[in-house]
């Protein structure tokens, strides 16, 4: 049977979604605010990759560290200058959430200005562009097929080691579980939160740089992806990094392979309804497992299953 490229498409989409979901979860864990600007941090990475590839003439992968830094800094700015003052003034979670939405609109406007500047200055397409043609061939496959899942694995292991084995990781866990108590034992909670936002935004930036090799780049890419990212984080429980990875992979694979399977079985008309899949995930998770994959007692389920 011939290899269907949709499997590599699904791997890439699931990996990038997991990466975005980790970042969103990291920021949620600290401030408990669902950050609607998160996907636009990734769009920054997409535009960094465009500049690196078409303006500087380098391989798109060079954009990864640059995107990490820029998107991370933008995330810290959002936390420091918008969310922190709101939290200090006792703003509700809903107000903070709306603030991130407003920040997202500002970011999209800035990205539009950037796109206009690029097209006018460098005479290169800066909307609905794709860098897929500039990927590196690796054993007959685009390198992104290998790099995307490996990036997830590296970041997951690094985060695991950081959270479990380093003083800073322990401080971070303490600060997120009980910030008041953490503060009284000398942990700099603000610094911990700032670093979480730096990492969350940075991971989105990395995802964005990689996305440019598979998705169509546009200032409006963020709003198109945000339902999938939230579905992944919610499926993962929203409070667990490992859940975010599992949720991202689950939602990503389902969106691509599930849509393809359903369209093959029930008719091509289903293709147009792919955006419903993440929304269905959110609803189903809320009904069946409000705490997501991370909240399910798997050992109890296994015991129950073996009895059946």
């Amino acid at each position, binding site marked *: 049977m011939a290899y269907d490229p949709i499997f590599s498409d699904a791997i890439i989409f699931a990996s990038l979604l997991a990466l975005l979901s980790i970042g969103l979860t990291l920021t949620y864990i600290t401030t408990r*605010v669902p950050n609607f600007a998160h996907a636009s941090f990734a769009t920054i990475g997409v535009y960094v990759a465009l500049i690196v590839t078409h303006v500087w003439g380098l391989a798109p992968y060079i954009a990864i560290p640059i995107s990490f830094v820029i998107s991370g800094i933008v995330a810290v700015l959002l936390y420091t200058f918008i969310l922190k003052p709101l939290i200090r003034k006792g703003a509700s979670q809903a107000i903070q959430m709306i603030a991130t939405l407003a920040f997202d609109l500002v970011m999209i406007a800035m990205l539009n200005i950037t796109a206009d500047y690029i097209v006018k200055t460098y005479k290169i397409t800066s909307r609905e562009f794709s860098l897929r043609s500039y990927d590196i061939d690796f054993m007959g496959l685009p390198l992104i097929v290998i790099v995307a899942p490996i990036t997830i694995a590296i970041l997951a292991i690094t985060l695991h080691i950081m959270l479990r084995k380093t003083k800073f990781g322990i401080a971070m866990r303490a600060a997120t579980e009980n910030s008041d108590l953490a503060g009284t034992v000398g942990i700099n909670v603000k610094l911990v939160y700032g670093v979480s936002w730096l990492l969350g935004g940075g991971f989105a930036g990395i995802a964005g740089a990689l996305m440019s090799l598979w998705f169509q780049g546009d200032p409006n890419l963020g709003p198109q992806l945000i339902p999938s990212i939230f579905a992944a984080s919610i499926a993962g429980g929203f409070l667990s990094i490992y859940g975010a990875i599992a949720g991202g992979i689950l939602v990503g694979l389902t969106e691509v392979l599930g849509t393809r399977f359903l369209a093959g079985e029930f008719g091509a008309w289903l293709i147009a309804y792919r955006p419903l899949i993440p929304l269905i995930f959110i609803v189903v998770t809320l009904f069946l497992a409000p705490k997501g994959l991370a909240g399910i007692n798997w050992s109890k389920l296994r015991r129950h299953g073996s009895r059946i």
Partner: protein
Amino acid sequence: MSSGKKIGIGIIGIIVVIGIAYGVLGTDSDTNPDNTTKVPSTVEESSGLSGEVTIGLILPLTGDLATHGEENWEGSKFGVVEFNKHLEEIGAPWHLKMVSEDSATSPVIALEKLSSLNAKGISIVVGPETSSNIRNIKGYSDSNNMLLVSCCSSAPALAIPNDSVFRLVPDDSNQGAALGKLIQHEEIKVLIPVWRGDTWGDGLQEAASNSFTERGGQVDEGIRYNPESPEFSASTSLLAEKVQEYVDEYGKENVGVLFLGFAEILQFTQSAAEHEVLDDVRWFGPGANTKEHKLIDDPIGLEFSTNVQFTTVQVAASKNPTYEKVQAHLIKTLGKTPNTFVHSSYDAVWIIGLAMLETQSSDVSIIKEAIPGIAESYSGAIGSTKLNAAGDLAQANYEVWGIRGGEWIKLGQYTQSDDSISLS
């Protein structure tokens, strides 16, 4: 409040906001300085015009059709410049001013912009560009006695007599006929349409499929994709499966794919290029993809569209001095060959202006009544601008274009009157 409750509240908020965000994809990057212009009070209705007469413009300067939108914007701006020169030459005591707004290729934002123009007292508008936008704002425009002159909307469903919309393109029942004829001429027996799930895509798909079926061809149910999708792997995988089945049955030379989309064609072809069988059959496309530079600038896009001999039709603009002048100006301004619709955008301004000049009025009802006569007598950049009973361009000849040898070249012409096609 417990963390469980907080999560619950947060999640409900997320669902609500996601729903809203979905409806309002896109942004309003208001890049045009003109939109702060006040509506001049010097316009004198029905008693002669003087001073500054303001018209509006709504085009997609951002979003899926930003490339087209920018080209058409330049076409309309040049139309205003040239028309004002004409007014100066004849000693008219007034000149046109155009207030531009960005629809962001979003029907919701287009409506917002139209109501904003209306609030400023601007009732005559060039645009919007897409049929989806027109469909969403037509009700508002009809009920508020406004007038829209679109360069590019072509959905057959919007060919409605005596409404507030004039369109300087033939409706897509004509483009569908041209595509059906072209595909039959190329000896395709089975056609698989793939189209954007919106007003324009649905209308053109139906027209082209009907035309091809009437000519004896077989049409698959096809694939209607979501234009907002960030990638198209599921669509191309399913398409490959369908094409393979037909190739096995009819042979690859008898199977064709009709792609009806906008700028997402590059993303789609890049995904399609992963499937060998999609590289083996002929692909056809609409005017919206004709001269799409992204296809020839991108290595994968170019290789794929060359392999499949990508062939399109687009409204034929007769070559005349005005056409040449507009073309030369836009090539200089944009640094590339523009799409044909820029000429319609240029003519839209002229037809509105000439109607005002003839009636010495900016009253919508008077202008609306005058436009069919003006359009019939005016010969613009697109040649004859005579309109049919529905207020759409009457002449419906199409040029056939294709990517051959790494560039877009004109391959021939479809003539509507005798339903004939001639390819070089």
